[in-house]
């Protein structure tokens, strides 16, 4: 009797855990299904080539938001990737215990800071002195988010490079920086690149830090002007009361999620083929 009860509990709880897993995974498919169903209905050529129409008017596209996003994310990558990468090299290769662990800790801390607060930082640093919203200030905000991601990924994958490779190169008389540039970094390059792709994909979807830095724009905007971006456009289109704008929000959502999925799957495939050197 007691045994039967225990077996019953066993079966019940184990299947409950299976149900939890099914619910968790199905959330992904429900989200994707909604996006594909609603987005594909409204994703057309105009979406990529036309400017937004006036409030409430049907038609138009998001060409300026797509270019704006490319611009902002591109600038952010130009600022964030070199800084993050070199800082990561420092953490892995010039580890001097105290300072490196302090930087490591602050990078993690910065990684955990809500994106909206990074937006406040960019606002005080760039928007306030310049007295206007600009694509550049948005790029600064996204760069601040990108730096800790790239730093920690670079460090992590450099650490996977076997010590023996480094020692071999040093023993052959290479100086340390030459060893880092020609042996350690190329050996870990796959992982480092993956980290960068994922980091850029992550900031490309951020909207909160852009709300009051890059702001928004119905027209084309320069680097020094307020600029539209895809995520912010989704936000404003979604909360508007117009059906046609909702339609556009879905289309933009589908485009954005396709980008994120592509980056993640590409990163996964690069990594699945293993680190460039066997671990020893």
């Amino acid at each position, binding site marked *: 009797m007691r045994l039967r009860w225990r077996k019953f509990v066993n079966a019940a709880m184990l299947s409950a855990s299976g149900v*939890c897993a099914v619910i968790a995974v199905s959330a992904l498919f429900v989200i994707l299904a909604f996006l594909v169903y609603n987005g594909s209905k409204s994703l057309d050529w105009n979406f990529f080539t036309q400017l937004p129409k006036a409030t409430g008017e049907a038609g138009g596209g998001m060409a300026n938001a797509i270019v704006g996003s490319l611009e902002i994310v591109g600038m952010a990558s130009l600022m964030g990737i070199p800084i993050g990468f070199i800082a990561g090299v420092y953490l892995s290769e010039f580890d001097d215990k105290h300072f490196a662990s302090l930087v490591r800790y602050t990078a993690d801390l910065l990684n955990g800071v809500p994106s909206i607060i990074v937006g406040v930082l960019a606002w005080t640093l760039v928007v306030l002195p310049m007295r206007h919203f600009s694509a550049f200030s948005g790029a600064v905000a996204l760069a601040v988010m990108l730096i800790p991601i790239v730093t920690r990924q670079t460090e992590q994958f450099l650490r996977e490079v076997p010590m023996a490779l480094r020692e071999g190169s040093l023993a052959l008389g290479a100086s340390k920086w030459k060893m880092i540039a020609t042996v350690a970094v190329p050996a870990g390059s796959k992982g480092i690149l993956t980290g960068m792709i994922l980091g850029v994909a992550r900031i490309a979807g951020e909207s909160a830090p852009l709300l009051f830095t890059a702001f928004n724009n119905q027209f084309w905007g320069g680097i020094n002007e307020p600029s539209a971006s895809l995520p912010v456009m989704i936000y404003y289109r979604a909360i508007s009361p117009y059906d046609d704008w909702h339609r556009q929000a879905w289309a933009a959502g589908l485009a954005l999620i396709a980008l994120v999925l592509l980056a993640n799957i590409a990163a996964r495939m690069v990594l699945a083929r293993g680190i460039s050197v066997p671990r020893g």
Partner: protein
Amino acid sequence: MASTAVADRPASTKIATQTGDLVARWVAFIFAALVLLIVVVLVFELWQGSQPSRAKFGWGFLTSSAWNPVTEEFGALPFIYGTVITSFVALLISIPLGVGAAVFLSEMAPAGLSNALTFMVELLAAFPSVIYGLLAFLTLVPLMRSYVEPFLKRTLGFLPFFRGPAFGVGYLTASLVLAIMTFPFIISVSRESLLAVPREQREAALALGATKWETTWHIVVPYAKLGIYGSIFLGLARALGETMAVTMVIGNAPEIHASLLSPGYSIASVIANEFAEAATGVRIASLIELGLVLFCLTIIINGIARLLIIATTSKGSKRP
């Protein structure tokens, strides 16, 4: 002859090598210091920017529920309440779901299936939050308004948590969205710490006649509990700072209600909504001070999460 070869090397090469290393070291050091500098500047700007508000309201800012741009009276309580209550309810949903799924993925599913499912769940964590907001606002909110909330009022309406009109937007909808956004973190990190439990622990329990579930619940889960707590705090930190999705569904009303069906506001949402329109002065300082409060909250929660996760992984884990 190797030793003479080294000795014969011209002194200039040696100096060049050393200078090159020194330069590389300093350049790398400066970039690493930049990361540190960003955080220092962030803290300084939040402190400096909130100065007018701190001077005017003092500690009373945290306990006042006024939010009146006309009279310039500002208080943080409705926002802190909204942030904390939505995160708390979100965790009530995502903890059982996340830990349950993690148990399945680590204890029952074959390795290949487990890895594939975990990849899918981790994809959820990579989705931009505005996507969650879009879906929640255009599909979940109407659903909550027409079906779920009236149902809750009919069945659980005697509780103070399920009263008032069904708007669709409000604490409960925000919590649901946050639950979906936090469980990928809980599943991913919990699974890692469950996988790090030594095989002998399971075998010993099974050999003593425990069922699979008893082994899991009484032996494996307690062994990995620090990592699971860590995953929960990680999810909590994300929920507290979540902006876009919450802004779109919480209702944006600076009020405090016991009922989960009522519209409210969160710290991140009020910053997102009002920062661009608040020109300067006490209002912007109050918003920055709210940012400071949120910053401190997430720092503490993230710190706890990190400590817990480090504690488990250093305890004989399989991870590098």
